[in-house]
Structure formats: structure tokens, C-alpha cells
């Protein structure tokens, strides 16, 4: 992994002969502190609601990580988070804010389902890659549209991706209640908006007996690793990161900026589409079902994936860890609800607090590190990176940069 300036404070403090404990602590323990503060706040909330925080938290941890079944549930929950997160790594590195994950997931699920239902007799080794690719393609198209809109027409991608989410849910409802609906008596003659049973050859095989751990988990991890190599070991990846850091400089260097942006959005959508296909073909129900909303299908992965990617530092490899952790939070939240009666919305609220705290403390950490360098050590001469010089993460839409 690249980046060397983060090694400096350690060397500065140690080499400079002064172990500055305060700043050292802040620099290393900011994140756990954020987690602890969030846990304390959560405990307070649980107490206020008449629940026992110890019961609650132990239920959360056990439900997420306690035993092979729990771990497999967490891993499965992490798959869409990871894939969306990887897609976000690509998009955000190109400085494109893709909040259309939800819609792209749905489109991927639809594309995969349609393909499987259209070609039910293919053997597994052909069928499974085919439907997963179809899913990726469906999401890719849904990501390409805002990509083209941004590159060619300067339509801001925050706007277009949000709007496409709204379109996607209606397309999903229309297809699953109409052209793709199961008319058989099993689905009460078409009254339930779901597809026919998916061909058994298209279902992702289960890897660990007694759990639901399916092929999607290793696939997602492999994809994440591939994207890491894409971003840091290929020239296309270099283009993506370069365009993300400075459009002008990249254009000046002769890179095809517009095409890169479009491709970044398309790839990001493809990741989400793949997540959608895995959701469908790894599901317990062996069908694509809708309850009328996007969240009912995606579980908000299109959204939580953004947080997961950002906590992984926009690095696909660390996103794997971050996705697993976040997946555990979600799975554990259900257990917490069952054990204490506190709605799992508490976990949502807490995750929001953790996010805010971690990014807030980030600044203090940066300052602490910068001051450590300034105070002594051979590296003191090189100026630290100032926050406003950092490549901006937020939207850069509409108009020239």
C-alpha cells in the first residue's frame, strides 16, 4: 500500500529522542476512542430505554461473531457491502460521487434473474459466471448513464444517481409484478411480486455445510483484490487516481479524462450490479422478491457500502475488513433487538455516531501528527500535508475544475 508520510510521526518522535506520549496516544488511539465513546453513548441510550447494555452488547457481539454460524452470517452480510465499497473505491478515487448504489444493485439483480430464467438449462460452470456477469452488466449500464451524463453534459452525478435510484425501484416493481412475475400457484397466480424459482444450476453453491456461506463470499474477496491491482498496478488505475487528484493536470498530461470518468462510474455500477446478482443467487429464497422498496432488496447496502469504503480508506483490501466489521454490526443488531427489545435502529444510530466521531478525530490526529513532526526529528524539514491540500473527496460536479 502506498503512502509513506504516515510513518513519519513514529520515526519523528522516536528518532527525535522524545517520546511525546500525548500526541502518540491521540494519533494511535483516536479510532478506538471513537468506538468506545459510541459504545458508551449506546449504553446510555439502552439504559434510558430500560434495557441492559451488557446483555445488549454481548448479544450483538455473539450474534455477529460468536460461532461459525454467526461468522458465516456476517460474511454473507458483508458481501454486498464489500462489493459496493469496492465500487466506491473506484468512483471516489476518480472523484465521482456515486450514490446510486441502491439502484445499481437492483438492476444487477434483475439482469441476473432475467438471464437465468431465459436460459434455465445451462450447466452450472457456465450458468453461474454468466448470471454474475449479467448482473455486473446490468449495474454497469445503470452506472454508465450518470457517468455519460457527467462527462458529456456536465450533469452532476449526485443528482443523476439519486434520480436513477428512484427510477430503478419502479422498474423493479414493474418487472417483478409484470413481465417477470411467477404466474404459478406457488406465487398465488401472480399476486406476489417475485420471479419464478431460479434454475438450480444458477444458485451459488454453499461452501460450508450447516451454514449459508456461499460462493459469493470468496468471489467478492477476489474481486476486491483484483480491483486493488487494477487501481495500483495498471495504467488505467493510474489514470483513475490521477483524474481524481487533478482533472486539469491529467488532461494536460494527455489522459482521456471524460472516458476515464465514464468508465469509473461504469465499473462502480458493475460492482454494485454484481452485488445484486449475488444477493439473488445466494438468497435463501431462490427467487428475486420485492416488497416494493429498494431497501427491501438491498438492505441499504448501496448506502452503507459508501461508509464501508471510506472506513477502508478507499482501499479495496482494507475495505474487506471494514465490510466484515460493518456486516457484523448489522447482523449483531438483529440479535440485540431480539435479546433486549431495543429496536435495531439503535445500531443504525450508533453506526452514524461512530462515523462522525472517527472522521472528526481524524483531524485531531492529523494535527497531532503534524505537530509531532514539527517538534523534532530529522523529517521536520518537510512540510506536512495540510488538509486543504488533500485531494478533495467531495463532489466535483458541474463545470470545469
Amino acid at each position, binding site marked *: 500500500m502506498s503512502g509513506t508520510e504516515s510513518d513519519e510521526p513514529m520515526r519523528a518522535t522516536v528518532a527525535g529522542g522524545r517520546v511525546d506520549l500525548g500526541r502518540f496516544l491521540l494519533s494511535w488511539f483516536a479510532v478506538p476512542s471513537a468506538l468506545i465513546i459510541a459504545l458508551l453513548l449506546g449504553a446510555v441510550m439502552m439504559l434510558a430505554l430500560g434495557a441492559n447494555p451488557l446483555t445488549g452488547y454481548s448479544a450483538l457481539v455473539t450474534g455477529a461473531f460468536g460461532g461459525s454460524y454467526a461468522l458465516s452470517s456476517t460474511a454473507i452480510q458483508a458481501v454486498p457491502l464489500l462489493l459496493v465499497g469496492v465500487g466506491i473505491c473506484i468512483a471516489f478515487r476518480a472523484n465521482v460521487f456515486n450514490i446510486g448504489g441502491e439502484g445499481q444493485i437492483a438492476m444487477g439483480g434483475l439482469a441476473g434473474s432475467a438471464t437465468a430464467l431465459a436460459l434455465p438449462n445451462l450447466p452450472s460452470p457456465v450458468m453461474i459466471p454468466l448470471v454474475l456477469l449479467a448482473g455486473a452488466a446490468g449495474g454497469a449500464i445503470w452506472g454508465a448513464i450518470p457517468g455519460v451524463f457527467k462527462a458529456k*453534459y456536465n*450533469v452532476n452525478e449526485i*443528482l443523476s444517481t*439519486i434520480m436513477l435510484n*428512484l427510477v430503478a425501484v419502479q422498474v423493479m416493481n414493474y418487472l417483478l409484478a409484470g413481465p417477470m412475475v411467477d404466474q404459478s400457484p406457488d406465487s398465488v397466480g401472480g399476486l406476489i411480486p417475485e420471479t419464478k424459482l431460479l434454475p438450480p444450476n444458477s444458485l451459488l453453491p454453499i461452501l460450508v455445510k450447516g451454514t449459508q456461506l456461499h460462493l459469493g463470499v470468496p468471489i467478492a474477496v477476489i474481486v476486491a483484490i483484483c480491483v486493488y491491482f487494477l487501481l495500483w498496478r495498471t495504467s488505467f488505475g493510474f489514470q483513475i487516481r490521477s483524474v481524481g487528484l487533478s482533472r486539469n493536470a491529467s488532461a494536460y498530461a494527455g489522459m482521456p479524462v471524460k472516458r476515464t470518468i465514464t468508465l469509473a462510474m461504469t465499473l462502480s455500477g458493475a460492482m454494485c450490479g454484481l452485488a445484486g446478482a449475488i444477493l439473488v443467487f445466494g438468497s435463501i429464497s431462490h427467487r428475486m422478491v420485492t416488497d416494493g422498496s429498494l431497501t427491501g432488496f438491498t438492505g441499504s447496502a448501496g448506502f452503507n457500502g459508501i461508509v464501508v469504503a471510506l472506513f477502508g480508506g478507499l482501499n479495496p483490501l482494507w475495505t474487506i475488513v471494514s465490510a466484515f466489521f460493518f456486516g457484523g454490526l448489522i447482523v449483531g443488531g438483529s440479535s440485540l433487538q431480539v435479546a433486549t427489545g431495543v429496536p435495531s435502529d439503535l445500531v443504525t444510530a450508533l453506526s*452514524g455516531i461512530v462515523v*462522525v466521531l472517527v472522521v472528526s478525530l481524524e*483531524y485531531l490526529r492529523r494535527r497531532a501528527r503534524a505537530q509531532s513532526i514539527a517538534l523534532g526529528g530529522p523529517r521536520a524539514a518537510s512540510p506536512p500535508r495540510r488538509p486543504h491540500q488533500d485531494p478533495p473527496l467531495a463532489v466535483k460536479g458541474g463545470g*470545469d475544475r
Partner: protein
Amino acid sequence: MNQFFTVDVLTVTVASGIALATPFLLAALGETIGQRSGVINLGVDGIMLLAAFATYYTALQTGNLLFAILAGAGTGTIMGMITALVSVTLKAEQGISGIGIYLFGLGFSALLFQKLVGTPLPIATLPPVGIPLLDEIPVVGGMFFKQSVLVYLAFLLVPIVAFVLNRTTYGLKIKAVGENPAAADSLGVSVARIRWSTVMLGCTFAGLAGASLLMYGGIFQVNLTQSEGFIAVALVYFGAWRPVGVMGGSLLYGLVGVVILTWKSLGIIPLSASDLAATAPAVITVLALLFLARRFRQPAALGRPYEREG
């Protein structure tokens, strides 16, 4: 279709469109102010939810709608302080912190609602208030001048915000801070103070948006906003960071939504097209921007925390 083009139906369609657009408008105006000063706030939806619940709960407990609306706005202000602290003082990455606030607002409002309220009861909603004389103008009067006070407030805020941004020193400072904070700083403008004020103001607007949304339906539900706050942020881009543009976007979005529902109720849109017709507001908004693609630049310092060098 002739049924649609009757006075009564058209009047209610436009009036409803205006009422439906109001929460979007309020939230988008607030976000515009913040973004002009260089701060992007993606937590608007979460703030709207918290404010909507505060409004609802206050109305349930006190029966006083004014207190309820003030509670909603106040919730917005408090969340604005938190947002400003995180985005301006602690210079956190604004996109992420916004999503964090959204998650918090979504979860906490749902939690409070389920634990504090139990079986939901509706509250009395704001009655439409006619503006004397103006509301008697044939056709137009019924469309524009028989709305609730929050609607009037929202549309009054459009010229006010435009005026403040374009014709006051404060507005100048806001824009300066959003375009070139270093230059503004060297001229003696406190970047932090300006941004604090715009963020707090913007989030207060978001609080009012949540209150107005609650007043529209008259009852709270988990995830009442259904991501409206994000649509409001999107509308800021549609409106090119100008209050009038934002108003136009909100009205377009609201009106198209109402027209689709009206056409469904008149049978103009058949049942088979019901789902796809519901995409109309989103599609039309994007298409409109496509064809009206103006070359308005976003504030140059948008999304970047400022730190003085040296």
C-alpha cells in the same frame, strides 16, 4: 384529458404541487446557503427526520402547533451546531460526516418514535390560510394564495435568501469564503465564523423542512422522509446554487409528482403504466437539467475544509 383541464382540477393540482414542493424547497435553500460557503452537508435527510419527530412529539404533548414548528426548527439548529463543529472546526471529511449524521438521524428518530410514542396518533395539521384579496383572484388565487403559513414562509425565503446572498456584505462574505477562503481570510473575514453561521442557518432550514413535511401528512412514521433530503441536495445542483433555480427545481419536482397522481386518478394513466409513470418526476428532472445544462460552476472551495497556513 378534458377532465384535467378544468379549473377545479388544475387549481388543486398546482396548489398541491406547491405544497408538496415546500419541504424540498426549504431543505434545498438551506443546503444552498451552506454550499455557497463551501460546506456540503449530506446529512440533511437525517436532520429532517429528527426535526419531524421533534415537531410531532411536541405537537402531541402540547397541542400547540407553533411550539411544534419551533421545536422542529430548533432541532435543526442544534444539529447545525453539531454539523458545523464536525465540518468546520474539526475539518472532517464532509461527505462522510454527512452520511454519518444521516444514519444517526434515521436510527435515532426511529428509535425515539418506537419507544416514546407507541401507537401513532395524528396531529392537527396547519390549515390553509388565504391571503386576503389575493386569494379571490379567479383561478390563480386558489392556486397560489390558499396555502399553509409554512408554504408562504418557504417561498418568501427565496427572494430573501437571494437578496442576502447577492446584495449584502454578509452574502459577499459567504460567496468569498466559498470561492477562495484563503483570500477571504487574508482580507480579515473569519472563514470559520461565516461557515458556522451558514451551516447553522442551513440546518435550521432543514429543520423547518422536516416540520413542514410532518405537517403535510399529519403523522410521523419511521423514515418519513423516504430520502427526500437527498433529493433536496440534488436539487441544489439542479438550481445551480441559486435560490431561484432551486425554487424552480423544487416546483418542477413537486408539480410533476402531483400531475402524475392526478392523471392516475382520472384514468389518463392506465394501471399497467402505474409503476413506470411514478418515475416521471425523477426522469423529467434529469432531462430538464440535460437540456438546460448551464455552465454554472460550483463554489470552488466546496467540500474542502479550510486551514490557515503558517
